[in-house]
């Protein structure tokens, strides 16, 4: 073994947590700067009841997601990837695919230390690129999009993400786990239709994410006994 777990903790995990905690704390503070500036410069703020009503509604909508998302994505992102993914967002659309593609192209062994480093570099690359694209978008305003015909823009908006999710699902499915994926998709589709289309199962929509993950884990245990696949 070229390195021990103790070395990994000292040289990798400790600095990862130090950077992650420091930057995410800085991000919490920086996030409030626009509101603080507007209040200090213009002195206008709506009645507090309105503020608490809005915050309450947002908390009700996303409160559970604050916990579910970091836990759910952690196996795919790793420790450094979780700090970056949760700060920069678009985890399912950009960060997980970036880590997967980087690891796949490098041919590293799943769950190895090399895989974690390569995956982290992939995520960092995706964060730098997406920051550049959003910055270019606001800087150029409508100019960039004006070059793209309307039909292309609407097609991108409607179809890129579903295609992305389908392709990533195939990446995880690989060669030997097709039965796991088919079983998970059938079970999840039945559940999703019952909950969201027919309202026949009294489950809150936010819980579908965690329930579907449990279905995936159970399907892996049942359809790939003992991890043979």
């Amino acid at each position, binding site marked *: 073994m070229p390195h021990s777990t103790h*070395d990994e903790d000292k040289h*990798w995990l400790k600095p990862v947590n130090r*950077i992650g905690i420091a*930057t995410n704390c800085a*991000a*919490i503070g920086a996030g409030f*700067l*626009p509101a603080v500036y507007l209040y200090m*410069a*213009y002195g206008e*703020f*709506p009645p507090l009841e309105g503020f608490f009503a*809005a915050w309450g509604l*947002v908390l009700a*909508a996303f*409160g559970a997601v*604050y916990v579910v998302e*970091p836990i759910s994505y952690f196996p795919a992102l790793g*420790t450094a990837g979780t*700090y970056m993914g*949760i*700060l*920069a*967002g678009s985890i*399912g*659309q950009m960060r997980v695919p970036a880590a997967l*593609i980087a690891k796949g*192209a*490098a041919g590293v062994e799943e*769950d190895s230390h090399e895989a974690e480093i*390569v995956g982290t*570099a*992939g*995520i960092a*690359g995706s*964060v*730098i*690129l*997406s920051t550049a*694209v*959003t910055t270019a978008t606001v800087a150029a305003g409508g100019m960039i999009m004006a070059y793209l015909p309307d039909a292309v823009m609407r*097609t*991108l908006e409607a*179809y*890129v993400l*579903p*295609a*992305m*999710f*389908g*392709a*990533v699902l195939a990446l995880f*499915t690989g060669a030997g786990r097709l039965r*796991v994926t088919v079983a998970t998709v059938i079970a999840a*589709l039945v559940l*999703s239709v019952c909950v969201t289309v027919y309202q026949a199962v009294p489950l809150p929509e936010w819980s*579908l994410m965690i329930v579907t993950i449990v279905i*995936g*884990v159970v399907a892996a245990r049942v359809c*790939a006994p003992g991890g043979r696949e």
Partner: protein
Amino acid sequence: MERLLAVANSRPMWLACGALVAVVLVQAMAFLRLCRREADRIGYPRSAITRAAADGAVTAVGPALAASVVMLTMMTFIGGPVTWQRFNVIGAVQTEPFVAQTAAEALGLTLGGPGYGVAALTMCCAVMALNTSGWLLFTVFFTGSMDRVRRRIAGGDVQKLALMTSGAMIGLFTYLSMEGLTAGFEYLAGAGDSVGMGAAVATISAFAAQMVLDRVVSARAPRFRSYVFGAALVIGTLAAYCAVPVK
């Protein structure tokens, strides 16, 4: 509305919003530097880290462009700087239009409608920052212990850990694919619109393209494997457009 956009697009607002974007960039660069340092320490080639970052960047191009379409709409309501800030952090397309709308409605206003002024924008910024803080606080307190918990659940069995991880990821991306697939089901049941069917076609054809291309390319031309994912995305999007053109 004109005064609001003048305030929202003012220079101090660019600076106030840019601070968070800078933190996002600094964090990514700091982790990339750490990756290089760790690669040196364990004798892993540095060039592989640079290649991994480039592969990750290419993967993000399509979704980043798709998000730009929504950004342009948001810019007309809350200005460029706030949109720039919010679309570089968690939430973005999925939450920020909802949060902006909810903040306006809690004041009895509509986003960008009469009465939507600086006070409403200030509140909107505060609620968005509080919302993001929820995710960030969780990572600050719990990320460090998540790996230990995960390994404890698997009891140190590496095969079991890999199986659990792949099952959890199949479950997660099945969930993310469900929006498209359920919309397709709704259309077939006569309830949803045709774009939902297109989304289902995009999901299924990209899945099939990735499975087939990966097998073929891995066997015959493994050096092109990192292009398979991009090709599957293009095939999925084109197949959906051919099945249900977006008007």
